[in-house]
């Protein structure tokens, strides 16, 4: 049992020390890391809980079920807080779409998320998807769930009150995924096929019943503690709940409802059968739970009770088969402080001189078309149209812009959510990559008019026992921490996924940030698409930028080279405050984050997402070098538009926050034109012609 519970996936033995450096406090934080999911106060007596988790190894083996059970797991984390799950996001990484295996995994993962999430009636409202050789053998699947509850209804995974009953609710227990989590903490090697653990098959129908049953249950007042059963099943859930409460637990495995013959106590304790919850119930109130389970058609069993002695005791009938101090099992995992050394590649990939590739072979228009047709930048509609992103009728800003915005019925509130992380940048410069993930996620939320309030994060890295990898990890965490402090977005929880490597080839270090923002007044939300012809197009933040780590350099010149754009956290913060002032003042017609692909791509996207008659632009840039002007990337930039009479007020707010702001030109119908003093008109086209590759790229690859 120790080997299982202390494996990285459960015990965080390598990562703990570094994670302790992240800021976790804030006036809105009600529950920080350590619980099943963090909780923040959003006013109106309501609390929001959210968490992101990885399911990387399973999708490489069975993409559909791997992704499906990933959704199931993260939803139960939210359920364990006593919250109603309200939305899902998915952050995905695959190899290139011109290769068969990545295509198959990609299709399977999206279908699996759709198959499970849609059945639960949970809208999948956002995420991100990148395709790069860096993930060819190690696809990543991080899923995030957001839940809402009344402030006073927060529940915890505590086995408090000796004498109280320990109950098991949901699916029966089988031999599924035993040692799944030790597996998740190993490299996939050549021999992986033979050691493949049984991947679980998800049962979204039972999960849906479990959600409704648990929400009714937590309202009855008989629940002392509630805990999901993830990795290491009953073992970890019992040990954790007891450790949190400083109590012990005494269970009898012979009472666990089984679906298979002849399971040993060991198998029962470590089974990772899905769709189960552990519930600590007031002594004598078990019938309440039993009645509820009967109505919802779920298995239920009282498998033991809470004890005062701090011991986790496992019986098989009368015979005691294991006795371990609960705390040792849950928290006692040894803390390592692995060696971290800066790997040599960092200097080569960042050596100066890589960043002046000369003009694009097919001209600037050709380059822009190529970028818009790159699966990393192209519309992700092929993905999110497979997700029911509207169910629950709260999705006010659907997937497709920077952040998704949800309404909260009965309040003026809006909730904005986005995920972000750039593996390439983190590979080139882990510190910057870590900071950038926070900055861009926050910028996405700000673009919708919401104030970023807190993050959850998922850290996807290679084998931490290799000093180079652990250096990447420490640097990325340091960058995330600095950015979270500067932007006042504490970390309320997260998840670490190590050993994402195959035959010694690690994935790009990929920290993914899930950001949550709050809009006090939903009617003040801002869209990413231009609104009306004649409006002024304004760039907040610097023009130009760098080609370091840019999508342009990879997609058009076929090279990945740094250094990537750095993050000036003070400038970033100023930009956010300026945008929020403009949004709350009702000055903005549109706002869109300038990120992958640079300014030209951001402008094009705002045209594609535009309202009727506003799908074009006529712009004059100042940056003399066309490739930098059009495709250079940098942080701290936002592309906004507003009606002419509001320009003055907008510029005034910008200067008050010391944010560079320049009117680039105006919105017009249908045609797209960008001029650069030095080079004249560098891009001229009908918007529809630009839109085609952007809209169809992914579908074409998948046809």
């Amino acid at each position, binding site marked *: 049992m120790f080997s299982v519970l202390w494996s990285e996936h459960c015990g965080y033995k390598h990562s703990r020390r570094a994670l302790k450096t992240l800021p976790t406090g804030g006036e809105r934080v009600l529950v920080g890391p350590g619980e099943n999911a963090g909780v923040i106060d959003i006013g109106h007596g309501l609390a929001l809980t959210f968490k992101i988790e990885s399911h990387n190894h399973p999708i490489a083996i069975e993409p559909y079920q791997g992704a499906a059970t990933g959704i199931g797991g993260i939803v139960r984390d939210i359920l364990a807080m006593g919250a109603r799950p309200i939305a899902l996001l998915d952050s995905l990484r695959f190899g290139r779409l011109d290769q068969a295996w990545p295509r198959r995994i990609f299709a399977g993962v999206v279908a699996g998320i759709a198959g499970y999430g849609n059945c639960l009636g949970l809208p999948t409202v956002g995420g991100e998807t990148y395709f790069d050789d860096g993930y060819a053998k190690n696809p990543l699947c991080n899923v995030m769930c957001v839940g809402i509850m009344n402030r006073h209804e927060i529940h915890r995974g505590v086995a408090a009150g000796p004498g109280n009953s320990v109950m098991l609710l949901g699916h029966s227990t089988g031999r599924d995924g035993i040692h799944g989590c030790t597996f998740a903490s190993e490299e996939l090697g050549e021999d992986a096929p033979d050691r*493949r653990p049984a991947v679980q098959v998800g049962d979204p*129908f039972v999960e849906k019943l479990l959600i409704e049953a648990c929400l009714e249950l937590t309202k009855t007042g008989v629940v002392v503690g509630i805990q999901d059963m993830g990795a290491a099943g009953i073992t970890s859930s019992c040990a954790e709940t007891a450790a949190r409460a400083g109590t012990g637990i005494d269970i009898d495995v012979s009472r666990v409802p089984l679906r298979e013959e002849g399971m040993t106590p060991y198998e029962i304790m470590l089974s990772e059968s899905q769709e189960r919850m552990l519930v600590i119930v007031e002594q004598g109130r078990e019938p309440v739970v039993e009645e509820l389970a009967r109505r919802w058609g779920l298995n239920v069993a009282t498998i033991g009770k809470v004890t005062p002695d701090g011991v986790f005791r496992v019986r098989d009938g009368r015979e005691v088969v294991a006795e371990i101090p609960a705390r040792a099992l849950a928290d006692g995992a040894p803390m390592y402080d692995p060696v971290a050394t800066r790997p040599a590649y960092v200097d080569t990939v960042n050596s100066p001189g890589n960043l002046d590739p000369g003009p694009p072979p097919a001209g600037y228009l050709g380059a822009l078309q190529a970028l818009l047709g790159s699966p990393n930048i192209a519309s992700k509609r092929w993905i999110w149209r497979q997700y029911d992103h509207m169910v629950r009728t709260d999705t006010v800003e659907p997937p497709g812009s920077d952040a998704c915005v949800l309404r909260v019925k009965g309040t003026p509130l809006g909730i904005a959510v986005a995920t972000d992380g750039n593996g390439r940048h983190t590979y080139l410069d882990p510190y910057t990559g870590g900071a950038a993930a926070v900055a861009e996620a926050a910028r996405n939320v700000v673009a919708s008019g919401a104030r970023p309030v807190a993050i959850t994060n998922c850290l996807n890295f290679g084998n931490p026992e290799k000093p180079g990898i652990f250096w990447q990890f420490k640097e990325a965490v340091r960058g995330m921490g600095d950015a979270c402090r500067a932007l006042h977005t504490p970390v309320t929880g997260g998840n670490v996924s190590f050993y994402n490597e195959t035959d010694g080839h690690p994935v790009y270090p990929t920290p993914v940030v899930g950001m949550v923002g709050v809009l006090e007044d939903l009617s003040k939300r801002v869209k990413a698409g231009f609104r009306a012809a004649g409006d002024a197009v304004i760039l907040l933040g610097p023009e130009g930028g760098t080609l370091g780590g840019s999508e342009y350099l990879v997609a058009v010149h076929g090279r990945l080279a740094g250094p990537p754009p750095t993050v000036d956290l003070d400038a970033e913060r100023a930009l956010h405050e300026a945008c929020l002032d403009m949004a709350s003042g009702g000055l903005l017609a549109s706002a869109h984050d300038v990120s992958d692909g640079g300014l030209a791509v951001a402008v094009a996207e705002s045209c594609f997402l535009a309202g009727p008659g506003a799908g074009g632009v006529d712009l004059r840039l100042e940056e003399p070098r066309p490739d930098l002007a059009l495709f250079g990337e940098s942080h701290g930039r936002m592309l906004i538009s507003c009606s002419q009479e509001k320009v003055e007020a907008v510029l005034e707010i910008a200067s008050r926050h010391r944010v560079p702001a320049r009117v680039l030109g105006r919105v017009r119908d249908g045609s797209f034109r960008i001029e650069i003093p030095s080079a004249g008109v560098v891009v001229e086209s009908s918007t529809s012609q630009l839109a085609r590759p952007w809209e169809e790229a992914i579908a074409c690859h998948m046809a």
Partner: protein
Amino acid sequence: MKYVVTIRVMLKRTVLDPQGEAVRKSLAAMGYAGVEAVRVGKHLELVLDAGDRDEAVRLVDEMCHRLLSNPVIEEYSFTLQGGETGR
């Protein structure tokens, strides 16, 4: 030679079969109490053109392994008819 192939793909016994369990419950609720251990899988039928029976068997086995099933959670079996053997 043309062979008529029927393929059966089922979840492994050790893997939960949510559909099967749901079907069993419904049947029970409809009054079919005597029904146990329901499993729901895929049934494929196809026509294959191959040089001879051995090649046909090799090809079908390969397809099952590579595309039609995932050996991690599923098992398959198949039968061939036709070809020179006429069966």
